[in-house]
């Protein structure tokens, strides 16, 4: 089991014939994802890695009932691709593209929500449910199947954390990168909620960074709604105010969005924040042991 993607995921790759699209379509297929089709206007009828290519999402969905799509399309066309996917009936759209204008994203977000679909990203590495499916660019070689859910705003920092967990023999249920932009389709809360409801996830790792207040909102949500152990890591404690640190959404504005504020908010509700991504496994092991002991003692009390 997992969140948002699993063995039943049927994936269409939008922008499949481009450099990134073709490379990653093949990688995902090799990993075991059911990549059912690709879409690039003008390239219908061709194939990429034996995957049939269609001219439009509409054409593709007539032949093949996909439920998920992933977008490897330049910023100028990414938003259009999201609308096209949602309008064609795709339920989960993953947008890898970095550089999408934030104002476009406000409109897209409202639209996708209205349609009852899920958008993940943009500017994200996608997600991977080890042994089941991979949608995006996360390397399959660093993950291991297990029961830890990982949610992060980052790309390679996420890999660092996943690798630390894998080395500590703490496999993952689903690893999801929600993206580094200011306006994203799926936030921490959405993933935390899904992880809490996912039977195969026993504990959660949450990786945040400066900018916005998603981590603070997540802290409050965890206090009220999440019973599983959570360990966090927040990047950007040494980031100067007012500067965009790579990610469009990683900026301390008007004094708010600092790493210190986020760490304080998490600590306030009892969520430990690791000092380094390599320390996450030990902290998590400890939390999970304590949770197990608590459960055992309440059982004996009964």
């Amino acid at each position, binding site marked *: 089991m997992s969140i948002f993607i699993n063995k039943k995921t049927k994936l269409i790759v939008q922008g499949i014939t481009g450099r990134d699209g073709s490379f990653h379509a093949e990688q995902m297929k090799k990993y075991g994802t059911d990549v059912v089709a690709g879409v690039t206007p003008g390239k219908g009828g061709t194939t990429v890695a034996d995957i049939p290519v269609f001219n439009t999402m509409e054409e593709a969905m007539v032949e093949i009932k996909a439920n998920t799509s992933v977008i490897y399309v330049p*910023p*100028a066309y990414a938003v259009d691709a999201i609308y096209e996917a949602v309008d064609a009936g795709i339920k989960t759209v993953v947008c890898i593209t970095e*550089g*999408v*204008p*934030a*104002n476009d*994203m*406000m*409109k897209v*977000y*409202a*639209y996708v929500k209205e349609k009852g679909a899920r958008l993940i990203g943009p500017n994200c*590495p996608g997600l991977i449910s080890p042994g089941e499916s991979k949608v995006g*660019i*996360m*390397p399959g*070689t*660093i993950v291991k199947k297990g029961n830890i859910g990982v949610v*992060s*705003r*980052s*790309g*390679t*920092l*996420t*890999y*660092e954390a996943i*690798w630390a967990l894998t080395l500590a023999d703490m496999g993952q249920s689903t690893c999801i990168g929600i993206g*580094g*932009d*200011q*306006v994203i389709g799926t936030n921490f809360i959405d993933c935390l909620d899904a992880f809490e409801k996912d039977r195969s996830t026993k504990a959660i790792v949450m*990786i945040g*960074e400066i*900018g*916005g*207040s*998603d981590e603070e*909102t997540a802290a409050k949500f965890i206090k009220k709604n999440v019973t599983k152990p959570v360990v966090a*890591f927040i*990047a*950007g*404690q*040494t*980031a*100067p105010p007012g*500067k*965009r*640190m*790579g*990610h*469009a*959404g*990683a900026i301390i504005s*008007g*004094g708010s969005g600092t790493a210190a504020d986020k760490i304080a908010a998490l600590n306030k509700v009892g969520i430990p924040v690791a000092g*380094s*991504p*390599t320390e996450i496994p030990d902290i998590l092991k400890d939390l999970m042991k304590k949770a197990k002991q608590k459960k055992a003692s309440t059982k004996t009390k009964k």
Partner: protein
Amino acid sequence: MKIHEYQAKEIFADAKIPVSSGEIATTPVEAYEVAKRFNQPVMVKAQVHVGGRGKAGGIKYAENAEAAKVLAQQILGMDLKGLTVKKVLITQAEDIISESYVGIILDRSTKKPVIMVSSAGGVDIEEVAAKTPEKIFKLYVDPIEGLKKYQARNLAYKLYRDIKQVRKAADIISKLYDVYWEVDASLVEINPLITNTAGEVIALDAKINIDDNGLYRQPVIATMRDLNEEDPYEEEAREGDLSFVKLDGSIGCIVNGAGLAMTTMDLVKRYGGEPANFLDIGGSSNPRKVVSAMKIILSEPKVRSILINIFGGITRCDDVANGIVAAFKELNPNVPVVVRLTGTNEKEAAKILKAVNLPTANTIDEVVKKAIELANLE
């Protein structure tokens, strides 16, 4: 991307928002000539990309052209919060009756643009938000539906009671909302929006921050970039498709991925060092990027060691290794460099690196600690 007051005012004027546009002067003589033409008291306003110019002495009232020349002399070349004033805007001084605030900003939590108005204008809005938040009225606008006329009117009624001024303000708010979308802004602000003795409603100041991601489709706005206001190395990095922010320390950092780069900086501090910079070489494995990155970092004399921290997923470690070898050949660094390459093709990378005989590390913590150790030996 930030733009100057005078540029924001040009954009507002094009949108038919009443502004006190004024004219630019780059020398005291020019300031004199502009003020002479206006033939009335003027404001001499430093054009730099910082807030609080008034408090810092960058905005002054000049009774006449001669005074304008003297003030321009003082303000041009002045250091305002780290930036040198190269231009001043000469505007006609107004007989101000009231000062208000109108701003529109992208609200991340609701994912909507929020319009804020306040009768506490002409002061730092963040201070108002902190001390007297009840003076700020907010409206979250449906990004698909847009701003309705009555909504703009409701906001205007928070600022004025006179129906003539209400209508003018409502019109300005609607036009400001349109500007926000048209120029791919992340923030548009009029502070203060004033009323004068003639009953006019005018934007005395203008601020627009542009979403960098929107620049590709804003060719005119893109030309408004002022390189004088930016760090030359940050500019060089941007052109080389690197993300770079200069800091003050001695440990240079080259990392792939923004989150990982921030974490690496944080760990430098944690283990007792000071990061010299933030640098993300991004996802592509292009060896030239490593050379560009190294060049920018080596240009800072404070740097006493450089760490290269790569977790290669899509990025191939052997490509980065080739970049490191090329960088050593071309740049011949005079400071120790320690490398950590984990992930795709790490074994091939290790072989390639033998050519430069560098200290290596296996983990993020190790590479940071080693870089600090080596810097201390310098």
